């Protein structure tokens, strides 16, 4: 797998409404359920489902009551992979701040699409092939949203046959490029 593909995979693993906020809300080595819930203002069942998924994905360990040596110590502990993902989450958060259009990683495929454009893949089919699993509908929707928000420009290429080319708008290029460098340093 190329570094480009690894960067895209890492960015995919951070998309979704809650993964990134949960990672950023955890303390140095992990956290307890109640402070997390209050910090994130999230429904207990939703937090529970997200934590379970993160445990399944190998980002967190869920300690049993007998494994915890003190009631104040974390119930969820970051794994090595989890710590790496938290570093990546910080990089994503920083890039979102630099881009200045709110959260982009909360929408499925948002960041991976921007990174794909950063890697100079500009045609719809090319982007789709690189982002394994994305549906044409979602890709089309996200590109349209990014275009409407002024993050992506599109123009028609006549050769080899007429089709749209998608590119990052000038002011977005640097933050996304910096994100790709930051993520590349972690994979």
């Amino acid at each position, binding site marked *: 797998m190329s570094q480009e593909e690894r960067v895209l995979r890492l960015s995919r693993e951070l998309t979704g409404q809650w993964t990134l906020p949960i990672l950023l809300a955890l303390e140095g080595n992990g956290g*307890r*359920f*109640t*402070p997390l819930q*209050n*910090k994130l203002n999230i429904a207990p069942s939703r937090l*529970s489902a997200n934590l379970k998924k993160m445990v399944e994905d190998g980002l967190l360990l869920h300690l*049993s*009551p*007998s494994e*915890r040596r*003190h*009631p*104040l110590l974390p*119930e969820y502990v970051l794994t090595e992979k989890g710590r790496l993902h938290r570093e990546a989450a910080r990089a994503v958060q920083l890039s979102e701040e630099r881009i200045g259009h709110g959260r982009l990683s909360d929408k499925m495929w948002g960041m991976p699409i921007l990174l794909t454009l950063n890697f100079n893949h500009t045609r719809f089919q090319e982007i789709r092939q690189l982002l394994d699993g994305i549906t044409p509908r979602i890709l089309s929707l996200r590109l349209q949203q990014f275009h409407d928000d002024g993050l992506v420009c599109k123009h028609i290429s006549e050769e080899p046959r007429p089709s749209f080319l998608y590119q990052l708008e000038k002011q977005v290029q640097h933050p996304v490029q910096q994100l790709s460098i930051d993520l590349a340093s972690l994979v």
Partner: protein
Amino acid sequence: MYRSGVTVWYSVANLEQTLEFYSGKLGFEVIFHDSSSGMAMVNTNTKDCVIGFSVAEAVEPATSSTVFEVLNIEDAMKQLGANGVSFVGEVEHVPGMAKLATFVDPDGHNLMLAETLAEL
């Protein structure tokens, strides 16, 4: 090396329910309560001996006992009983040492009253 102070920590399911029990029923003073972090502490009948509580997703009742000394166990049971504390079984005697009465907090953590019969 040591200074005066002992803290017993319990994981609990519901902080408000726990404080209602330890403060409302047992009469201990709440000295710290932070709902956002799910933490609280109460003073006990003994100087520098406090009990801390931390909300947890999963709580297993502690098998060790925190034992509170009382002057007269029957009187204490009557008083706490009037506050709604239920005792488990009868008063148990450890000949020549103590009389013990067991009760549990809302999470099933073991607690006891002890009337010492002979000073150690």
